[in-house]
């Protein structure tokens, strides 16, 4: 039998227990034309189960002194719960019902579809979200990571209750579940909890990994999200990054931290400290189950947007061509190794690191020997990772701003653009 994997971190410092139940089936499994299905399934779990109505479930969660969050990601959907220790048994009973016997009530289903459409409209008010959404849509074009987890108006309309039932039946099996428990429980208690959590799920093998790494972008692409009355611009610039399975991941992560990962990084110094252009200026190397994005983020005043992009591209070129210095490497190693203490200072953080190894297909010792990995990075490896993985020619630039005011200057600021898309902020 393929049962759930279990990770436990015991700590009796506080009378609090955290439980995460992750199902290895995320939005990447949404059928074509049904973007948003996984998130709908995740949200339907708490809207009726085992004879309880949505209202009864919510009342139960609150009266136990619990918090429940159910989220859908590209490759997982996860139920997170925090609960006061004295109520843990009652919460586990509820979670088992919620995972194994959701009713997918028709009335609640219709209500959730309408609520989701309202959220899609509301999300357009958030410029940062618009920038991220359009950056990922273009960067991951043709790959599931480019699809909206929340769905679009047309795809939400296309989802039926049968789709929801089928998704649940297909993916919610014991073999596809991983569980993390942290806090005031013993290992033995956690094992019993784990068994009870999946007791209403059918057995079943692990999920097949059908996802491939996203392909690199071809050429420089600008996507300009046109929104009226903007006083500043949200700007994301980036390309496909690396994955912890890749040999260059830790060297690239280290070099990215020098470039834009701290308050004194190159980007922060040049964009914020020296020029005062943007409240924040950062660069990040994200990963998912497959390679995700390397991305820079700034948000200058509209009048400075074109110049800011120009400086960012120059800094990127410099970073690619000359790399980081030995002094910068020594500094960032001290920062990353010492600040690692805050990645593991609570039982919940520690247990989630273990869970991530499984869910995101990380090397076994990615987190547990993180400090050793960082210490082992050489200057040559860091700079090679930057020059080989980061492309200045193949990248996506996403900007949210008022096109008639800054569109022309922005286009002029970016040499060798292969394609320019101007989209209305409410297009999707």
């Amino acid at each position, binding site marked *: 039998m393929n049962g759930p994997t279990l990770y436990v971190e015991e700590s009796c410092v*506080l009378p*609090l227990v955290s439980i995460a139940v992750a199902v290895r089936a995320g939005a990447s499994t949404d059928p074509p034309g049904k973007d948003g299905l996984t998130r709908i399934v995740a949200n339907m779990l708490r809207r009726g189960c085992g004879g309880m109505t949505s*209202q009864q479930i*919510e*009342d139960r*969660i*609150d*009266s*136990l*002194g619990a*918090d429940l969050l159910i989220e859908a990601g590209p490759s997982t959907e996860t139920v997170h719960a*925090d*609960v*006061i220790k004295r*109520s843990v048994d009652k919460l586990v009973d509820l979670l088992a019902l919620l995972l194994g016997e959701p009713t997918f009530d028709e009335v609640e289903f219709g*209500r959730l579809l*309408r*609520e989701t*459409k*309202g*959220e899609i*409209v*509301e999300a357009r*008010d958030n*410029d940062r979200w618009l920038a991220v959404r359009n950056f990922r849509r273009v960067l991951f074009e043709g790959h599931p990571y480019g699809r909206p987890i929340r769905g679009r108006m047309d795809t939400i309309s296309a989802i039926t209750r049968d789709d929801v039932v089928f998704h649940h039946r297909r993916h919610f099996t014991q073999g596809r579940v991983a569980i993390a428990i942290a806090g005031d429980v013993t290992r033995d208690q956690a094992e019993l909890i784990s068994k009870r959590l999946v007791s209403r799920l059918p057995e079943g093998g692990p999920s097949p990994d059908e996802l491939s790494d996203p392909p690199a972008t071809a050429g420089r692409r600008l996507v300009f999200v*046109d*929104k*009226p*009355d*903007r*006083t*500043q611009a949200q700007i994301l610039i980036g390309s496909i990054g690396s994955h912890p399975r890749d040999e260059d991941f830790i060297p690239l992560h280290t070099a990215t931290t020098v470039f834009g990962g701290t*308050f*004194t990084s190159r980007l922060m*110094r040049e964009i914020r*400290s020296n*020029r*005062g252009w943007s*409240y924040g200026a950062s660069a990040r190397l994200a990963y998912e189950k497959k390679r995700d994005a390397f991305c820079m983020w700034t*948000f200058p*005043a509209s009048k400075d947007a074109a110049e800011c992009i120009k400086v960012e591209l120059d800094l990127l070129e410099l970073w690619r061509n000359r790399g980081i210095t030995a002094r910068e490497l020594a*500094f960032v190693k*001290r*920062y990353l*190794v*010492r*600040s*690692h*203490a*805050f990645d593991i*200072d*609570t039982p*919940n953080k520690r247990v989630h690191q273990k869970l991530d190894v499984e869910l995101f297909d990380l090397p076994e010792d990615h987190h547990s020997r993180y400090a050793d990995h960082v210490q082992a990075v050489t200057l040559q490896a860091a700079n090679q990772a930057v020059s080989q993985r980061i492309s200045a020619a193949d990248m996506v630039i996403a900007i949210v701003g008022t096109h008639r005011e800054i569109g022309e200057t922005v286009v002029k600021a970016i040499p060798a653009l292969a394609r320019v*898309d*101007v*989209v*209305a*902020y*409410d*297009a999707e």
Partner: protein
Amino acid sequence: MSQTAVARMLRALNENKADALCVVHEADFPFGPAMTVRKYRLGNGLTVLLLVDPSAPVASYQTWFAVGSRHEKAGKTGLAHLFEHLMFNETENHPAGSFDRALEEAGAESNAATWVDWTFYHENIPRDRIGLVIDLEAERMSKLVLHDPQVTSEKEVVANERRFRVEDDIEGSANELLYRTAFTTHAYGWPTIGWMQDIQSFTTDDCAAFYRTHYAPNNAAVVIAGDVREKEVLARIQKAYGPIEPSVVPIEDVHPEPPQREERRVAMSKPTATDKLAIAYHGPAFGDVDHVPLAMLCEVLFSGRSSRAHRAIVQQEEIATDLRGGLTAFRDPGLFEIYATARPSRTADEIIASLDSEIDRVVSEPVSNEELDKVKARGELSLLQGLETVGGKAEQIGFYHTVLGDPAGAFDRLEAFRRSTRSDLLRAARRYLLRERRSIVIVHPETKPGARSET
């Protein structure tokens, strides 16, 4: 540590020291069932609040100054917040940038926050680097260097922060207008980030005067929570902060808000598809006996999917997509705030009508026992979640000390939650949730200027 051991430690620390440098033990505060916050004071007035917590090899170091936007004057709004930015610049012994660089090299997480009543700076740091933080924080409390280019650049950064949080953010704009409408007299009516015109007109002299007045040991509390040795930390603090002179903190020119006698409504338009709504009823101060029952009532109405208003307005009537409520935790009387986003084709007026029937209900009849029990359970969970990290513990201690003068106030508040009755909530509803005491901001979609799509 026993009282005798504390006395012995202080005798050793204070031996052959002038009175101004001596450390005095003022009180102990039980912090939950197993921990204690120990309160000390230096001769120059600096309060030190220490919680030894060996649960992880880290520590949190926070400096809370009793100055926020309420201490500013009209025409100089945003100075407390701008100054928070400037505190990360040059000092007499450290060139620009070296403060952050040194902390990062030590593996620290560092940031700061300014609000209406206070400003605080925090560093989370591996336990063996705590001495570095003490030295750096003491240095910038008294030896900050202010030059025109730094002030000019930081003003531009803050202007960009304002564009991000207010000008280009619908809720930020609505919130600012709501406070300006609700408070006609009290300094809570202007935004902590400041009006744009004020931000752009500050001079280096304004900043220097603010620093001399408010950044002094007798206007601050240092909070340390984590795996530290009490005696070593106190000795280092004594050495680093002891020589800093206290300032004469001026008596605050406070203007209490007069009672509001009729509802105020204002409207604005933004590029958005749906109506937005912000409502504020005048509420009690954080230390008022009514604050806990009104906060509990707010939970009954707005906390999560099981709350009354969410259930009615979002789930059953389907008028709104988003609905939230909260009660401010201000030293002077604050606001009971409600924010909502209408569904496409529904209106802010429909949300107000539905909200009014929910408010009328809590004013006319008591909440149920089950609702009261839910709120008490949620309050307990929320406190526990806030104590998971040393940073969370230090923040609870610093906030409650600065606003209420009680470093362990979080636990007292939990007890007040447990003691509260249905009639307490009814009394709070009838005292505060009155229509003539509220202000309403409605955001309407502006006419769409033909946004186009080209690909």
